[in-house]
C-alpha cells in the first residue's frame, strides 16, 4: 500500500492505496462517489471520463497512486457549475440520454467542448465526442444539447 493525498471535489483525501487500484474504483468503492461509471476499462468508451487537474481524463486507466497531489473532479463535483447546470438542462430537454450510463462522462466531455472550443461547429463537436460512446441516443440529442448550450452562451455574452 502507498499513502496518497489528493483533492476530490475540493475535499482533501488521504488514503492508503494498492498501486494497481485504478482511480475510478478508488472513487466508487472507497469514497462512495458512484457517479463515475466504469465501462470498457481500457480508455476507449469514455464512460469514466472525469477531470484531473482541470482537464478531462480517463479514470479507468489512471491509477489512484499516480494521482497523489492531484485535484480530481467527478460528476458529483459539478453540481453548482454554471456550464454544467446549462448542460444538464439541455441534455434533459434534447433527450440526450436514455439509459444514462455514458452521461457522466459525456457531460464532462461536453463541458470541455463548450468551454475550450466555444466556436466549434457541429462537425467539430462530433469529432470531439468520438471518445465517448453512447449506444442509446445515436448522438443526435447529445450534439443538439451541446450546440444549444454554446448558442445560448454566445447570445448571452453579446455574440462573442
Amino acid at each position, binding site marked *: 500500500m*502507498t499513502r496518497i493525498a489528493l483533492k476530490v471535489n475540493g475535499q482533501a483525501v488521504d488514503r492508503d492505496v*494498492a*498501486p*494497481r487500484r*485504478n482511480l475510478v*474504483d478508488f472513487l466508487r468503492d472507497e469514497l462512495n462517489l458512484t457517479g463515475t461509471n466504469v465501462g470498457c*476499462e*481500457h*480508455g*476507449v468508451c*469514455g464512460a469514466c*471520463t472525469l477531470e*484531473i487537474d482541470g*482537464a*478531462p*481524463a*480517463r479514470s*479507468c*486507466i*489512471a*491509477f489512484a*497512486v*499516480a494521482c*497523489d497531489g492531484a485535484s480530481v473532479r467527478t460528476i458529483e463535483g459539478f453540481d453548482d457549475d454554471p456550464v454544467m447546470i446549462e448542460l444538464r438542462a439541455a441534455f434533459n430537454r434534447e433527450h440526450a440520454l436514455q439509459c444514462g450510463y455514458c452521461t457522466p462522462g459525456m457531460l464532462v*466531455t461536453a463541458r*470541455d467542448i463548450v468551454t475550450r472550443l466555444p466556436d466549434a461547429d457541429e462537425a467539430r463537436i462530433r*469529432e*470531439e465526442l*468520438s*471518445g*465517448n460512446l453512447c449506444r442509446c441516443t445515436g448522438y443526435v440529442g447529445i450534439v443538439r444539447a451541446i450546440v444549444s448550450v454554446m448558442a445560448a452562451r454566445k447570445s448571452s455574452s453579446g455574440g462573442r
Partner: protein
Amino acid sequence: MKAPHFEYEKPATLAEALRLLADGGDNAKVLAGGQSLGPLLNLRMARPDLLVDIRTLPELRACDDDADSVTLGAAVTHAAIEDGQVPDPTHGLLARVAQGIAYRAVRNRGTLGGSLAHADPAADWVTTMVLLDAGLRVAGADGERVLRAEDLVEGPLSTCLAPDEIIVSVHLPRLSTDARWSYYKFNRKPGEFAEAIAAVVHDPARGVVRAVLGAMEGAPHVIPDPHALLDGDIDALATDIVTQAGFAPDTYEHRVHAVALRRAVAGLA
C-alpha cells in the same frame, strides 16, 4: 479487467528514475501518461513488477527553442502540443497531428515520449518523428545517447531502447518558412489507431524532401526517392512505392496505404 499487482515508485529526479529501472531489471517499466500502458496493464498484456512514474520529472518537461531547432521534453502531452503551449518548429504540423491522436481525455495525459517508447506502428508520433528526422535524447545508467527517430522502432511495440533507458527529449529541426507538409491518416472512426498513414515534407530552402508511410507492420517506411513524388505520375508511383514497402498488391493494406500516399501528396499542393 483490472491491472495485476505491481509496485510503484515516483522518483523526484531522472537519476533516481534511472537507478530504479536499472535495479528493477527487465520487469521494471516506465510509466509516463499511462494512456497506452494503462490499457495494457488492465488487459494483462503487460505484467511489470515495478512501475517507475516519470510523468512529472522536470528534466522531461523542459522545452527549448533556438534558431535551427526545437527540443521538446518527452513528458510533454499531446494536448500541450495541440494547444500550442510548446514551441512548434513545423508551422502547424505538430499541432495538427496532435489533434488527431485518440481523444482529448487521452491527449491530456498521454505524452510524446511515451507514445514513441510504446512504439505502436499505427501511432502518429512514431511516423511524424521519422518524417521530420527527429533526434531522440535517451538517458540510461551509463549516460546519454542520441538516436535518430528512424532507428527507434524495431517492430510492433518493440524498440532499440534498453529496459533501463528513458527518452528524455525529442529534438526537431526547424522547417523554413516556405516549407510545405502534408499528413494523411486513414481510420474508420476519429481517434482510432490508423489503418494507414502517409506524410510528406518539402523544405526547398533546406534541401529536404522526406516522405514516410506509417501504420506499417513495424517501423515507418521511409520512401527512398521522395523527389519523384513531387513531379511524377503519383497514381502509378504510389502503387509501386507501397509494393516496395512490403505490402502485397491487391490487398486491403496495399490499397489503403496507396490511397493515403496519393492523398498526402495531393494535400501538399
